[in-house]
């Protein structure tokens, strides 16, 4: 590692000093791929922080799975919870969980994993001094206490049905002694976990390299890592990623777009796979008129727009494959996501009739806020134009659009939601309709149903109230749920990689063919 670092910095110095000097020493990049047991994958964004608790990005979650482990593992293929750092767990009551911990696990720096690490993690990160970036992940934890060297008790603030889901994902266990020594800054510079890969080298803005942790503890969840070296490259442009993939500069990319996928499928050395995720797209209408008085406050108008848009045609033509139309305001496989709700089929005639009934026979002007998938937004605007509604696209950054929606400055927004990959409706519908900051509807009936559902532990009660809420949301056409977002992956055919629905590529589970 040191030699590599030296090499790197020498290279940088060379480039920085004078380009002319570099003329003398052309450097060719190392060949990646199966031949030298290195899997190079590309992400669009550079992770904000390797120290997981200071990051909220999806890519941070993905990398955290390499470096650290969680107490519980949620099998991405079956959805079952399996033991990882905890060998078993029991609910003592609805606000207390006991864990038996695995023995014989060591961190990358040799520190032994035991109850102290777990207690530290669950006491420190929920505390204000830790400044944990995603408060949502830790705010439900009251604290942990040590019951033995390998036994821990976790206290919850309130009953929290999604606790296991959280313990299996955004709560990696940190080494307490190392943290006491270096703190969060030290963890950022040199991350240490128990995970299947160790961080070998970081060139900010460019690459992060991981090497296999040969001492990774045997387990039935993540198994043993197979590929020797992983390299993450930051390539912000999809097009650049594609060019690199075609020329062997990277071995793996995801979120391939429709026209790229078509071309890639014809290339013999590449495998192209579509896999569904929990992300759904939706049009959120300002039904309550928080952005001023406009036609969208009329339910007939919202229904008309819902009938005007040909969701199926967009799914068929603008997605590489694997997408489907959704009708409920949640991801269909989430717990409680009732499917039997009003479905708005594509029917321009009906749309025009509804507009006429609502008093807008000649249509009207509106704005549509958009932060991604311009093409799909354009297609929808085209469909609206066919029934006389003139929608202007306002394309902005996610934050600006979300801000506008929240503060009532948006008539209609084309947004998406990934539920943080949590398979429960409390992570989707409840975020937008339970009276919280993102709820622009403030429908008391829906809020009450969702509140009941989110706090009840009886599955039948939950299903029943969620069903009522979703039916009302659909009937009122607060949202037009659009489609699920499959991701299309493209990678070298040498690689054995199975995409999963949790929007997390599990590189630790990949192997060469």
């Amino acid at each position, binding site marked *: 590692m040191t030699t590599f670092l030296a090499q790197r910095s020498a290279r940088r110095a060379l480039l920085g000093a004078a380009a002319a000097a570099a003329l003398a*020493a052309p450097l060719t990049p190392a060949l990646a791929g199966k031949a030298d047991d290195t899997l190079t994958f590309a992400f669009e964004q550079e992770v904000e922080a390797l120290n997981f608790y200071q990051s909220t990005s999806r890519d941070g979650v993905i990398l955290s799975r390499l470096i650290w482990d969680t107490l519980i593992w949620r099998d991405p293929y079956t959805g079952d919870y399996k033991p990882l750092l905890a060998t078993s767990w029991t609910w003592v009551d609805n606000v207390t969980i006991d864990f038996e911990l695995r023995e014989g696990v060591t961190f990358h720096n040799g520190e032994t994993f035991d109850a102290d690490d777990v207690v530290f993690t669950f006491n420190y990160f929920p505390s204000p001094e830790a400044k944990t970036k995603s408060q949502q992940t830790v705010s439900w934890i009251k604290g942990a206490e040590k019951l033995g060297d390998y036994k821990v008790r976790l206290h919850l603030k309130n009953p929290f049905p999604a606790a296991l889901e959280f313990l299996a994902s955004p709560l990696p266990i940190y080494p307490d002694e190392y943290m006491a020594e270096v703190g969060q800054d030290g963890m950022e510079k040199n991350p240490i976990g128990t995970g299947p890969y160790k961080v070998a080298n970081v060139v900010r803005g460019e690459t992060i390299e991981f090497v296999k942790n040969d001492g990774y503890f045997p387990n039935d969840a993540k198994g043993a890592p197979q590929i020797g070296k992983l390299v993450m490259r930051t390539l912000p442009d999809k097009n650049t990623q594609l*060019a690199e993939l075609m020329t062997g500069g990277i071995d793996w990319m995801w979120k391939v777009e429709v026209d790229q996928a078509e071309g890639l499928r014809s290339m013999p050395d590449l495998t192209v796979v579509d896999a569904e995720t929990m992300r759904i797209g939706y049009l959120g209408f300002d039904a309550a008129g928080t952005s001023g008085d406009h036609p969208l406050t009329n339910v007939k108008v919202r229904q008309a727009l819902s009938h005007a848009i040909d969701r199926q045609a967009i799914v068929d033509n603008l997605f590489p494959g694997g997408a489907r139309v959704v009708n409920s305001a949640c991801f269909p496989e989430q717990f409680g996501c009732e499917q039997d709700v009003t479905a708005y089929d594509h029917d321009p005639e009906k749309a025009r009739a509804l507009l006429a009934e609502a008093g807008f026979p000649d249509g009207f002007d509106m704005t549509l806020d958009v932060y991604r998938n311009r093409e799909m937004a354009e297609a929808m605007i085209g469909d609206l134009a066919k029934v006389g509604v003139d929608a202007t696209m306002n394309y902005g950054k996610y934050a600006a659009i*979300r801000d506008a929606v929240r503060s009532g400055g948006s008539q209609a927004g084309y947004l998406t939601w990934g539920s943080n990959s949590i398979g429960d409706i409390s992570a989707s519908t409840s975020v937008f309709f339970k009276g919280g900051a993102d709820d622009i509807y403030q429908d008391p009936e829906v809020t009450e149903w969702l509140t009941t559902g989110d706090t009840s532990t009886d599955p039948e009660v939950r299903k029943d109230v969620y069903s009522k809420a979703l039916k009302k949301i659909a009937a009122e056409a607060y949202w037009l749920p659009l489609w699920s977002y499959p991701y299309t992956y493209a990678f070298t055919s040498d690689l054995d990689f199975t995409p999963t629905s949790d929007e997390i590529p599990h590189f630790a589970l990949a192997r060469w063919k």
Partner: protein
Amino acid sequence: MLGFLLKRAALALAVAVTVSIISFLLLRASGDIAVAVAGEGATEADIEAIRIQFGFDRPLIVQYFEWAGNALTGDLGQSVYFRVPVVELIGERMPVTMGLGALALVFAVALSIPLGVAAALRPNSIIDRLSLWIAVLGQAMPSFWFALLLMLVMGVWWRWLPISGAGGFDHYIMPAIALGYYATPAIMRLTRAGMIEVLESDYIRTAHAKGLGTGKVLFKHALRNAVIPVVSLAAVQFGFMLSGSIVIESIFALPGVGHLAWISLQRSDFTVVQGIVLMLSVIYILMALVADLFNAWLDPRIRVA
């Protein structure tokens, strides 16, 4: 000379202060930064915590003076996204941008000076027109389009050059061409004009009369004199290239300052964008100052202007 120097330095300073105010206000006007910082899954509590942590809740003027005061001591604040000092981020990436700018300038100069000289030797000839055309084509080429074409042809079709990243020298060739071509016409014209003027001057005629060979006259006397103004133009062009590197670095995924600016803008990491605007402006101001002083030193008439 001292008076001139002081006057110029005062101007440069006033400009730097103005730029700092503009860049500060510009980025503060954009939406609720805390929402952007918090990211997609954030709750209202997350956002509020960030607002207080970064001091976004205080009056603008207080925030400006704190920022500007710190900037004087070399502290441009913390990146809201990375949570590390902006200076550190810029420092890490400056070598890439400087390397790219330098190489682009080398490319521009290597192309335009021979063209300019060739054109000046035979004004209004075919060579003159041809070299003007080559240069003019560069000025009309949208750089992002040129960059994509280079990537398509030299990277994907022919596989001559690596497509992206900053691995080695070869990674810089396409970006440098795409960035440097735009600057060629200006340098070429100036070389051409300078050469014509020098070639018609008395002392070159004298040199010829003394029987010195054409090649020697051309390179030893004429070019050396004609190139002097080109040097100061090139210094300023370098400043422009740093700005142009935003598009080019993004296309070729070069982890430089331009790219950092672009992605920071996309994720509303305004402390970084402010820092970069300020940094690029200061570099430009210094370059222009040096160029001015250089010109004044060469040509005393300017000093009184």
